[in-house]
Each structure stands twice: as C-alpha cells, then as structure tokens.
C-alpha cells in the first residue's frame, strides 16, 4: 500500500513559502500587538521539532507531516503538543493510523479528543502508538508484545504475512531518521487500567 504515503508537495511548498516570506517580510509592525501571546507560543514552538533541516532523513514527525493520509494524526499530535517527543533521538517506532482509521471511530470521538480539556487523554492514546525501538515489520514477528511510551504493553500478532499491533494491521512502512513509521489501519486504543 505504498500509495497511502504520498508526499504532500503542496503542503511542503506552502511551508517553504511561509518560512521565506516571514524571514524576508516586515515583521515589526505586527510583533508588538500580541506580545504576550507570541511569547507563550514561542515557548511551545521551541525544540528539535522546529529545526529546519532538509539534509537529514526526515524524522517520524516530518514523515507524518508530509503524508496527506495522516492529517488527523498530525492534528492530534499538535493538539497534544507531542511534536518534540517525536523528533527525539529515540529510536522511535510510530504506528500511524490513517485518516480513514480515525474516521472509523464513533462519531464525535476525534472532535472530543481534540478539545483542550482532553489533552492528557489524547496524549495517552497517542503515546500508546509509540514504542522506544526501531523494528521492521518482519522483525516485529519476533515479538509477542511491545512496551509503549504510555507505559502500557500492546500485543503483537502474526497472521500469515500480516503483522497486527493491538489489533491494527501494518499496511505500509517508512524508515525515518530517528526510527520507523508503520502505517496502520486502526486506531489502537489503550486498555483501561
């Protein structure tokens, strides 16, 4: 299913445009208007996630950002403010549900999770999609379970050639600079503790 990981060239292009226009354009007029707001925002937008680097292999966050099939996931990562976690030296293995996987959740679930008051619950779910490790789909067949970043275990099952993690099937994989992204067809919900 390589087609599910198309690069959004439009997105990249507009990103570059914004960066360059911001660098060259006048900024002083608008800057003082929202001094407090921009200070808070800049605290949050510091860190490895926000370093410009077009030479290195894209990290797991950049891969998600560049995929048009993962816009919901990206929005969720941003709402949970987990960008800097995903660009760490890791290694990180991210199970990335597609937009379709999010759509398959009961009506209203995603909207609910994106609300600021549900930030912790959302972060918990997202971290359940992250393993400190870097294993290919084939290599994952050696595992019975994985320890996830939210401190819970997730089961690994092999059915024929397919690998399922927490019931979600791996439908594509992209190597990243700091790990690997496995595209999955379901959102993996952590067991209630």
């Amino acid at each position, binding site marked *: 299913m390589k087609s599910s990981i198309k690069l959004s060239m439009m997105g990249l292009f507009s990103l570059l445009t914004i960066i360059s226009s911001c660098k060259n354009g006048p*900024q002083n007029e608008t800057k003082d208007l929202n001094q407090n707001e921009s200070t808070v925002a800049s605290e949050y937008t510091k860190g490895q996630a926000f370093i410009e680097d077009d030479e290195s292999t894209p990290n797991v966050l950049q891969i998600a950002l560049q995929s048009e099939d993962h816009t919901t996931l990206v929005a969720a990562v941003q709402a949970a403010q987990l960008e800097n976690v995903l660009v760490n*030296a*890791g290694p990180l293995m991210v199970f990335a549900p597609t937009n379709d996987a999010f759509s398959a959740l009961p009506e209203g679930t995603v909207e609910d999770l994106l609300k600021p008051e549900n930030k912790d619950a959302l972060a918990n779910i997202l971290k359940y999609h992250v393993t400190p490790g870097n294993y290919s789909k084939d290599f994952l067949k050696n595992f019975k379970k994985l320890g996830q970043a939210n401190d819970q275990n997730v089961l690994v099952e092999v059915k024929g050639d397919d690998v399922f993690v927490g019931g979600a099937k791996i439908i594509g994989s992209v190597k990243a600079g700091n790990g690997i992204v496995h595209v999955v067809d379901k959102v993996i919900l952590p067991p209630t503790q």
Partner: protein
Amino acid sequence: MKINNHLIVTMGAALMLVSCGQQNQSSNGALSSSAAEKVYVAPGEQDEFYAFLSGGYSGNLTVYGLPSGRMFKEIPVFSQFPTSGYGYSEETKPMLNTSHGFVPWDDAHHPDISQTNGELDGRWIFINGNNTPRIARINLSTFETEEIIEVPNSAGNHSSSFITENTEYVVAGTRFSVPIPQRDMPINEYKSNFKGSLSFISVDPEHGHMDLKFQLLMPGFNYDLSHPGRGKSHGWFFFTTYNTEEAHTLQEVNASQNDKDFIAAVNWKKIEEYVNNGGGTKMPANYAHNLYDEGTHTATTTMNKEVLTVDPLKVPGAVYFLPTPKSPHGCDVDPTGQYIIGNGKLSADLTVHSFDKMIAAIEGEKFDGEAYGIPILKFEDVLAGQVKSGGLGPLHTEFDGNGNAYTTFFISSEVVKWKLGTWEVIDRKPTYYSVGHLMIPGGNSRKPFGKYVVAMNKITKDRYLPTGPEMEHSAQIYDISGDKMELIYDFPTHGEPHYAAGIPAEILAPKSQKIYRLDENKHPYAVKTPTDAKVVRDGNEVHIYMSTIRSHFTPDNIEGVKVGDKVYFHITNHEQDFDVPHGFAMIGQNTSELLVMPGQTKTSVWEPKQVGVWPFYCTDFCSALHQEMQGYVRVSPANSNIALKWSLGE
C-alpha cells in the same frame, strides 16, 4: 471529514509559528529578564562553584565555573593528552598501563567528590573508565590524576565511581556480566554462567590510596548505576539493574521483556565485617595499580595478582532485590537517605522506594520469591510512591536539599521538579535537546547546594553556530533558588559529559596548589641548580639532565649524540612562580611536547634517525624572550667518534 477545516487552520497556525517563533524568542531573550545578570561574572571576578564534567569518550574530566559556564581546565585522566604531555612523558606513561598493556584512552563517565560525614570535603574526585574498567583518583589541590586502579572481573565499568559518605569506599559495578574468571565458553551459555561483579575499593583516609578490598559476585544482570545510602541508610549501597532476563543478544528487545527489573540493595558494612573476619574467597587475577608520586613526579605500575571475592549467599541479610519498573537507569538517594529513586528509562513514571519500608520488609520477610537465592522484596512493601510526571524517559534525579528533586527526561527533553514525600510535580522546563544527566553541586551528598542545576544534553543541533556534522554537546544552567526553575544560560561542553559533580569554590580555591617546590623535588633525574646540568651516556642511551628558567635551557648546545641513540631529555623547571610553565619539543620526535610546571621534572624521549644539527624549543610562551628559548643537538653518524659535549653560552 468534519474536522478538515479545523485541521487546516491548526496546521497553518503551527507553520506560522515554526517560521516566526525564533524572532519572537530573540526579542524576549536573556537581557529582558535578569538571567544575564545571574550568569555574568565580571572581568576579574570569580565563579561561585566548580563544576567537574566527565568527558565521556574524551577520557578526561573538564572543569567549569558556575554560573558562568566558562571552562577552566581539561584534566587528563584516561587519555594521552599532548597539551601537558600526560601519557607521553616517561613519568606518566605508567598511568595508562593495564592488564591489556598500555591503553591510551577510555570512556570517562561519573565523577564523584570525596566526602566526610556525608558532606563534600574537596580532597579528591574519582572517576570511572567505562571501557577497560578502571577507577581514577584526582587530587583537588593539584588537579592532577594521581592514581588509577584497574578493576578485574568487570566489563563496561558503569555503575561506578560513587563513594560512601566518609569516602570509605569508591564503588565500581560492572555493566556487562562476563564469565568470572574469564574463560573460553559459548556465548549462548550466558544464562546463569556469567556473573556481575560489584567492587568495593577502599580509600586510605590520609593519602587516598585505593585498594580493591572485596568483590561481590552477583547474578549475571547488567548493573547500570548506583548510589550510596547516607544518614540512616549509610552502610548500604544501591544499584539499578537491567537485563534481568540475562539476554546475550539484541538486548534492546530481549532485555526489555520483564516489566520490572531490580534495584540491588547491598549492605556493605555487613560484607565488610564478613571479610574482616576472614570471609570471602581469594581468586587469581591480574590488574594494574598505577600510582603517581608527587615527590618524584613519577608514576609506577604494580600488577596485582589476587582479588577477594564474596558470594552473596554466604552473607545472609547482605543483599536484597527491590523490584523496579522498566529497565531503571539512574539510582539516586535523597539527602536524608530515606528515598531510593529508580528512574525507569522506558517509562513515564519514577519509582521511589523507602529505606524504612525496605528494612521493615526485610524484618517481616515480605518476600516475593528469590533470584539465584537472593530474596526479592515485595514491590508494594518497599514502594514509597510514584511520581506521575507526564514526561517520558526519566534518567537521573538530583536534590536541592530543600525537599525537592529534579529529574531529567531524555525522550521528552525536559527537567521536572517534584516534591519528595508528596510526589507532586511542581515545575518542568524544556532542555535543548535530549538531556542525559543533571547536576546540582553536592547533589550526591547529605548537603546539596541547591542554587543551580546543570542539564547535560546529548543533542545540540541548532543551539550554537553549526560546525559541520560533529558538534560539542550542549548544557543548560537553571536557577533553582525560586519555586520555578529559570533557564539562565546555555554553553557547549567538551567530549560527552555523562555526569558531573560540583562544589562551592570556597572549599577548593584556597587550597589550589600554585607551584611544586624545587627543594622538595625527588625525581632521580632532577637538577636542582643549573651547574648540575649534564649529559651522561649509558650504552646507546643518552640522558640529558636539563634545567629551564626564563628564557633558556641549560644546556642548550649538545654534541656527541649519534644516530641510533635513545635520548632522554630530563627537564626540570627552575621557575618558582605561579603559572610559569616551560614547554619542550624536539623536531621529528615520535611523541608529544611536554609542559613542565614550576619545580617539576618531566622526561621526553627522542630517537634521532638522521644526521644533522637539530633544534628544540620551548612550546609555552613563557616570557618576552620566549622566542629565544631554544637549543641544538648535533647528531653524528652511528659510527662517529665525536665526544659528548654540552654547554650554555660558550
């Protein structure tokens, strides 16, 4: 999809911030707060604290000032260092001897300063060599490495070199378990055959001389980090373990199967008593003990042939395991000695054990099975609390002495401040980036000096002007005197600091040595006055007894040296003035230059291969006439009859 519009707005906003955030940052930088004042040490003023940062793969120890972040010195420990000639001079080559021969490098990890009654006394600082297991002792008056002892039966000497609260012992635990004694055997028979050694090296209270008193042979786990008990828990030592699965391959998978590993609690006083009463088994060994004598300015190597080993099962009540989740890394004990903290590096939470509960659980025999005969205490019965931090990847915790703890989180790149006893998170600040360890001066003692915390990061990326693919690591200083941490400075560090130790300047600065007294120089080749300078031939060895003073060598013209000779320049610096070293370098020499401190003697070897008249010179800009400080050696053919002759000013 309904949320698409929302998404586009969110992403657009995020992108704007990405591109514009940095300009905002600079307008709200250090100068707009009091951060600049807090780190500014005016010209001529001095810092409040010394900070000793390990150099990691540099093999050395670097000395910085806090809060300025200025580097004062790199102290050579396990690596040859051409700046001073350490490991190149004849006097210091023995410092790097091991049972594997001359090993000119190591991976220096965890410095720890000597203590008396649980408080920093500033006599020595110890540091471990991780790769070829060694422990070094550095004198904090001369800031020179004085002693290195190799640790036998160890591999990846990582849970080291932490000291007990009266510097009774410096403790060195193995990271990798190995066959003990080493032997030829299949790797896949690791399980239950390999052992992990925990070495207790006694420290002579007067001279600091180290002696491997006993070695506890533990199950074949990986012993990661350790800390001494203090106060009420003095007499115990705590080690984090991982790979309790005893995997011998692909540990990143196979060593993460157990939900819990252990903190090993070792009652070393009990074992000491056992050993003092004749307990333990002597085992043949071969390890180097290198000692530098300040009087002769010379190091010697002794090969030790025996080590006293202790089977933990022979000393009932001496060793217990405390279950601790998720491959814990840092093993930290709070200033009161009550709390033992396991930093589960693949976890979000910190596990805090209680010393009192541990003692009660031992007395009440609240066991949850055993591992190789060592009782495992019930998790619930030793647990004091858990810190639900919300961070990811806790590595190391230090303390401010005011009831607060500070933990680094590698994966989420932050320092989290939390309260001992209530376990509530009080504050968190990002680090830049991927922080490993942190340091509060006196953090491993009963009396921390909780004014600053230094975070040592593994990743630098965009923090400084780029210097190609390889960059120095970054460190950040936070002011922790208030409720909230305040980032006040950011500075590059040398090598890879894995750990650090800090101490108030007022303890060290007054006793820092300024010169070596020439009249106390006992080097066998020293010359006390220039009139004693001479050249002596012994077969094909030529010994040049040479002195230096601003700005000449005595002698500076030497004839009668022949191709095939081995020429020893024994150079005594006759200066008795603070900070006036002289250097020495000879053209074509297959070694480094030397830097000779006032009153010191050092020796450099040269084996001339070509006939001619060859110059040497002083490498240290010692005076206005430094450029004149030079000399010549005439090298004649191997079969020539030119007599030895030396002179100055003829």
